[in-house]
């Protein structure tokens, strides 16, 4: 009886002093139009009205508040697409892919955007890296983290059970090899995805010159069109040294591209 009484007291305390004030604050924010959801809906209305600049401003305000989601980046990408800033649209869709990689709408829009830019899907690295990326392309960073944790738990459980059940020991070698291989592949894919955010960038200007040296008057080595993905391998003042999907390296003006992580 004492326990039941304590539970009700605690619940009452929580509802009175924690939940109700939070709810009030949320409602107040909603009413004032400052809540993240309100900002999102407001930006959607601008998009529906064809006010793409305002819609972009609205979505980016949410991002400035330190929030992000797949749908948010998807809508932002759509807005940039409609505005004609296709490089920034690629950047937004790339960010959205980090959250909702299996979203059909996103895939369709991204394909169409690449077609408009006359670009092919660009995969970086050697055959092994490309294979791993393709295998795990449907997974987000969080899903991969959970998957890794799951393999880890299965591995531990299997090892514990193997101590007590001699039958399991017969298959232990094979099972451990499979689990270890899965673990290594997943960890590699996770590492690639984390690196992808920090190292990859998208060309946002119409055309960018990749030069031999980080100098304005240096000779142009190759050109990069809008929406092209590149890997940033080195940074200098005002310049990024980038690698194209065909492994060509060149220095590119910092202002002509944007990192996916930003």
């Amino acid at each position, binding site marked *: 009886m004492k326990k039941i009484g304590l539970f009700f007291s605690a619940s009452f305390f929580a509802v009175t002093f924690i939940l109700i004030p939070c709810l009030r604050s949320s409602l107040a924010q909603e009413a004032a139009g400052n809540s*993240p*959801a309100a900002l*999102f809906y407001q930006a*959607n209305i601008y*998009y529906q009205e064809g006010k793409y600049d305002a819609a972009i401003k609205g979505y980016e305000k*949410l*991002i400035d508040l*330190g*929030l*992000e*989601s*797949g*749908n*948010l980046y*998807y*809508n932002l990408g*759509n*807005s940039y*697409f*409609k505005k004609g800033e296709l490089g920034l649209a690629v950047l937004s869709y790339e960010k959205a892919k980090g*959250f*909702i990689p299996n979203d059909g*709408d996103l895939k*369709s*829009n991204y394909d*169409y*955007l690449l077609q408009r830019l*006359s670009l092919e899907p660009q995969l970086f690295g050697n055959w092994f890296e490309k294979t791993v990326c393709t295998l795990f392309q449907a997974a987000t*960073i*969080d899903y991969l*983290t*959970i998957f890794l*944790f799951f393999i*880890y*738990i299965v591995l*531990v459980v299997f*090892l*514990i059970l193997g*101590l*007590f059940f001699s039958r399991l020991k017969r298959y232990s070698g094979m099972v451990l090899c499979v689990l270890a291989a899965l673990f290594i592949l997943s960890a590699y894919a*996770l590492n690639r995805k*984390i690196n992808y955010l920090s190292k990859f960038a998208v060309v946002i200007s119409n055309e960018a010159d990749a030069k031999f040296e980080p100098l304005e008057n240096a000779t142009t080595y190759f050109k990069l069109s809008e929406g092209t993905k590149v890997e940033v391998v080195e940074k200098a003042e005002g310049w990024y040294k980038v690698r194209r999907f065909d492994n060509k390296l060149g220095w590119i003006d910092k202002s002509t591209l944007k990192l996916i*992580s930003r």
Partner: protein
Amino acid sequence: MDKLKNITRSLKFPALGLTLAFYVLSFTPCCFAKELSFEATVDSGKVSLGSSLQLALNFSNAQNMPAPELPVINGFQSRYLGPSTMMSIVNGKVSGSITHNYLLLPTKVGTFKIGPFKFEHNGDKYTSNQLSIEVLQGQVQGPAQPSSQAEPEIKDLSDRLFVTIQVKKDRTYLNEAVPLIIKLYVNRLGIRDIQYPEFSHEGFSVSAFDKPNQYQELRNGVNFDVIEFNTSIFGLRPGEFKLGPAHIKCNLIVQKQRKRNSTLASNNSFDSNIFDDFFGRFETYPLDLKSGEIAFTVLPLPEENKPVDFSGALGSFGLEVTAAPLEVKLGDPVTLKMVVSGEGNFNTVGVPKLKSEKGFKIYEPQIKQETNEKKFEQIIMPMSAEVKEIPMLSLDFFDTQSGEYKTINRGPFPIIIVKPEKEEELKIVENKQLTPAVFVKEERLGRDIIYIKDTPGLLKKKSDYLYKNKIFLVFQIFPLLLYLITLVLYAKKQRLKTDLRYARGLLAPRKAKAGIRQAKKYLDKADAQKFYDTLFTAMQEYLGDKFHLSSKGITISVIDEHLRKNGVAEEALVKLREIFRECDMVRYASSQLTQANMRDSLIKLEEVIDYLQRRKI
């Protein structure tokens, strides 16, 4: 049959004609198409007094020319030696020449000009070139009379064996291809093992040498065998440079001087044994021939009037462009074939550029480079039905002849883009059970992006990933800890199963505690007999388990010796002895001990067990 005869007759006449032509060509003094030329040569430009040299008067494209009668030549006496003829048929063209040879014997020292020789035949007048011959007082060494010391001989050969280096022009632009010719001149000397030339070329890039040419050249009236090496050089940076000297390594073959011990009788033509030729009559001397140097200027490309799209092409070029097909469906490929021809550095020639790439998808070209042309084959794909023409193609280059930038434009090329006949394609899906066939309409009226999302989805903090969550990271330790604990427990269990000593030692205090607890009950009941029986059993079992001994065989003497070995304190041993004694007193002597004595015994046993457990003996 008549038809067959006609065919045979018609075949006979051409065959006869061919036979006649062959005979005419073979046996008649041919009617040479080329003009007749008259040339005078000597076998050496220098001769010593007392020696002789050979004068050759050559009539090319003629074979029946009589020997000209030489005029009196100042400083020489002449003697006709005879004619030699040569005939060659190259690609069906017949050419021939006749050379009349004369022996010239110098009569005084000096430099003499002989010729030009004039000759008249069948009303035609011929005039040869003039020659200059130096007559020296001393011995002029020749290959036929070499000395045994090779070095002085080679020094004297500089006018008969030398290397020249020359370029077509000595001022060039950066990256401009300039032909370079290195010639090896040889006059009546045996040379072999000739290596490709080497030369210093700082500031230049040099192409590989072509296959060398071999021919004869008249130089200052002396006929030389020439080996010509051709290559191209490219200036890598502007400035003034020196090319050369060019080195050619080869071996000179000289005849060994014969021993002088032969008798007069043996000094005849039979004296030259054929085996001498095989066994050392000739010797080879390695030579490193060196040419002169050439001053060379490399000019930078002018910045003035430089086209925006200039990519470094240097030379004088022409451009031909063809595009096919010029009527295509939307999205079908069109091939652009571009041929850049002319003279210059083709390595610097890039693919001609389209003025605009709008409405086209452009693929990387395939490139094929030949000696005097570079071919590009590029696929372009119209991506819009609005496209009406392939835009103009242009090639920018710097003309090194005129020293100015030039642009060649080709096109635009009109093109017809055929739209797909129907935007909506009909596909027939046949169903064997259902007749007639069902028509399924595949709708595709256009394409645009899919609409925005209504909800923001799961909004979360930026960069808030699970792998960065501290609680999640800490939690990773627990499964590992769980495994380690299980492993330790498992190992302990396994030891208990297999290691009896360990198992008895581990169980000893537990069993002793149980015995002591039982003894306490008898203490409360003041049942001394049972108390000491229980106490003794507990003590015996504890000590037996603890030291892996048979419990039944535990006596004070056995355990005393064992504990002493393990360094147990004397106090504990005294206590044990007292307990043993008290137990024996009650169990065998029926002594009546008080409850206080019993408690005292119990405490002593607890203290001993506690001591032994703490000492971990």
